[in-house]
């Protein structure tokens, strides 16, 4: 039999096939045993609950770790010293200022999950296009998992003209972004924009201030991610979609929202673009769960699954997290939709988190320095 990592990579690549429940089950239990053996803090956490690989017969019984744990300890299944990457959350938490740390011992497994999923969800038509990121490069933000992810996408999937249009010092480079888009429009080459929701808001505000709009070439699209400050997520999303249509000429189907977190190697994307490309219509709004992950909506008090259609906290089981902890309890509210879910945003009163907050602070600070 192939080593565990190779079988996981094969599972992650099976984006076009049917969901293989038996295969997921087998690999999840193996991955749990792997982590139990190598991640001593997590093993101690399991032991305190009387759980060992011998007592777990289904992936749903694997002990979940709240994301808060990543702030207290380094949850590594493997060699910390030789880890490929160490990502940190933006650390805007209830004033405590502690940042979550996600150590990734082997980024090849991370990339093996990231790339097929991105292709399937953002590029289901197989087009190759310039990837323009409204974020500093991964070299400038080595601790940002989002910058890392965009870096991999630019490097592996981006056409000529791809790049990063922001810096840590000065925030968004609007003139350079404008020039890159103008070139794409002139050559009628579709383009993919990537950024946090808040970085897009900053950019759209700047475009609005000078009454400028773009008509992006057919096939263009964007990926936005992260939360909104002080607004109900659904309203904020709708408003932002309307602004994308007005300022960039992108219809809702070509705006793909990504939901990811520093503590997880897999991502969840809106299913709409893929559905529309493959089946002609976008279908109900939902996040697609990739083959290497499963998500549940659980009761906040009991952590047991809620009835279908009820709102609860999202719980993710992500096999791409082999190097840390695969079972994650979030503070995000969601509702199950088919084999995916709808993200309703952070549970009110819980810790705000998100790369977009850091990005927003960064951009605001840069704007202040300029003025």
């Amino acid at each position, binding site marked *: 039999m192939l080593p565990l990592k190779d079988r996981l990579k094969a599972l992650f690549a099976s984006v076009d096939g049917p969901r293989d429940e038996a295969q997921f089950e087998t690999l999840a239990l193996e991955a749990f045993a792997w982590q139990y053996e190598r991640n001593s803090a997590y093993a101690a956490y399991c032991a305190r609950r009387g759980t060992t690989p011998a007592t777990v017969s289904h992936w749903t019984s694997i002990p979940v770790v709240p994301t808060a744990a990543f702030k207290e*300890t380094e949850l590594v299944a493997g060699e910390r010293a030789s880890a490929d990457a160490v990502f940190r959350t933006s650390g805007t938490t209830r004033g405590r200022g502690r940042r979550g740390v996600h150590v990734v011992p082997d980024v090849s497994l991370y990339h093996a999950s990231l790339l097929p999923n991105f292709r399937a969800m953002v590029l289901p038509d197989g087009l190759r296009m310039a990837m323009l990121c409204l974020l500093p490069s991964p070299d400038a933000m080595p601790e940002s998992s989002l910058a890392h992810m965009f870096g991999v996408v630019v490097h592996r999937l981006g056409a000529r003209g791809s790049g990063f249009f922001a810096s840590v010092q000065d925030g968004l480079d609007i003139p350079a972004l404008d020039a890159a888009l103008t070139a794409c429009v002139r050559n009628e080459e579709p383009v993919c924009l990537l950024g946090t929701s808040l970085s897009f808001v900053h950019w759209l505000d700047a475009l609005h201030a000078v009454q400028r709009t773009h008509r992006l070439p057919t096939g263009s699209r964007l990926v936005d991610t992260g939360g909104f400050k002080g607004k109900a997520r659904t309203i904020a999303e709708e408003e932002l979609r309307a602004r994308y249509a007005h300022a960039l000429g992108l219809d809702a189907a070509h705006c793909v929202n990504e939901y990811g977190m520093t503590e997880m190697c897999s991502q969840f994307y809106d299913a709409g673009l893929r559905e529309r490309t493959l089946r002609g219509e976008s279908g109900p709004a939902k996040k697609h769960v990739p083959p290497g992950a499963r998500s549940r909506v659980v009761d906040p008090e009991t952590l047991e699954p809620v009835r279908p259609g009820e709102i609860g906290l999202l719980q993710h089981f992500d096999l791409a997290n082999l190097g840390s902890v695969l079972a994650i309890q979030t503070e995000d509210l969601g509702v199950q939709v088919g084999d995916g879910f709808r993200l309703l945003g952070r*549970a009110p*009163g*819980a*810790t705000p988190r998100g790369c977009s907050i850091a990005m927003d602070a960064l951009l605001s600070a840069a704007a202040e320095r300029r003025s």
Partner: protein
Amino acid sequence: MSVLDGFHLPDLEPADVERWRTLDRDGVIVRTPILRPGVLSRMIAGLRAARAEALETRSAQEIAAVIDRTTELMLEPPTIGPVLDALPPVTGCSAPMARLVVEHMAEEWRRPALERLLDAELAGGRALDAFVERPGRRAPSLAVGPKLSFHLFSGNVPGVAVTSMVRALLVRSAVLGKTASGEPLLAPLFARTLARVDPAMARCIAVLYWPGGEDAMEKTALDEADVIIVYGSGETVRDIRRRAPDRSRIIEHGPRFSIGLVAREMLADPDTAGRVADAAATATALFDQQGCVSPHMIWVEGDPDAADRFARLLADALDRLSVTLPRGRIDAGSAAAVREIRTAAEFRAIGGEDVEVFPGPNAGTGWTVIREATAGFRPSPLFRTITVLPVERLEDAAPRIAPWGANLQTVAVAASRERVAGLAPGLARAGAMRVTDFERMPWPPADGHHDGSGALTELVRWVDLD
């Protein structure tokens, strides 16, 4: 399915109602009217007129007698029953909690408590009628209450809204109350019951709900009121301060927290230690820790072992209370916050730190005791989540609390009488509003100071005749 009125509006005409707002919680529907523009102003004029007739003409003692009779009637099963049934689904508290809290709160609305309060602050009420001599003052003084007080209630502790209304009535103020969506029931019930006892006096009260910050309604109320009394979060209080007219008097009951101290000598005898832990657990469990008098942390004098022993006793007591006084509903964000604080402590323990987590039964967040070895003050996510930590000498606790003193309410001290007397001045200077024991912690006496001021004197204006 039952429909309850979450309002009391004298002179409400069908034409005044634009439409009805309903709050549906587990089959209990609370309805409140959305008033047409201009109606609130008319009602405020009505409140002022009713006040001149029904309050101006009566002594505080007479008003107290009416309030007492109203409370008596209100507590009769046919009256209080439907509201007691509705409180758990509407407020989220458990049924035994609703009953216990209403029973205790109602003591404050009975004649003995009202008389003690009048005696303590307004010369038995005579100070409202005539210039009276006051101890230590050469000139006699007369207390003048506001004509109209606007109360913005919060929903954390059932019944506080009624206490606030009762105190305003005692100083002859008409009352405009804005209920919180979290507890829209007891204030209207009191006003409706008052209408049965004394219809004229009930016309001095209007109680209504609208979403906080709704501009037109709130602006009218803020502009018209002589005194504004606001209960709520720091954000709410700041918002009201910003929007109220400059001339307004604002009485703020903002966010506060409480703590406990346990002296070494209380742990020597197991029975005494058990009694202290029981009382501390009850103080933690009451109001599901939503009260400003609910403890967030308890310092135990001695080494970490002493703190650990006390934490275990506290955990046992909280476990027993989870049966006799069950916890109510918890929102997703708070449940996540409780898990976060537990997880943090648990992983620090796994990492070798001297921390112990006692996490209630099963996966639930029912109650949590975290025993630390060293820590500063840390606010609790509430819902019966408490931290216990050692302190070498109780005298060392006050300076550690002082940085958060601006928001400190009660400090409960379990210690000998002499030691409490010795500790109290330091705690007072560190910010405490009240020093008491764990038994009395949840129930501040009606005639005590409220957040540092007299409960009635903070409402009135003193006029000297010199």
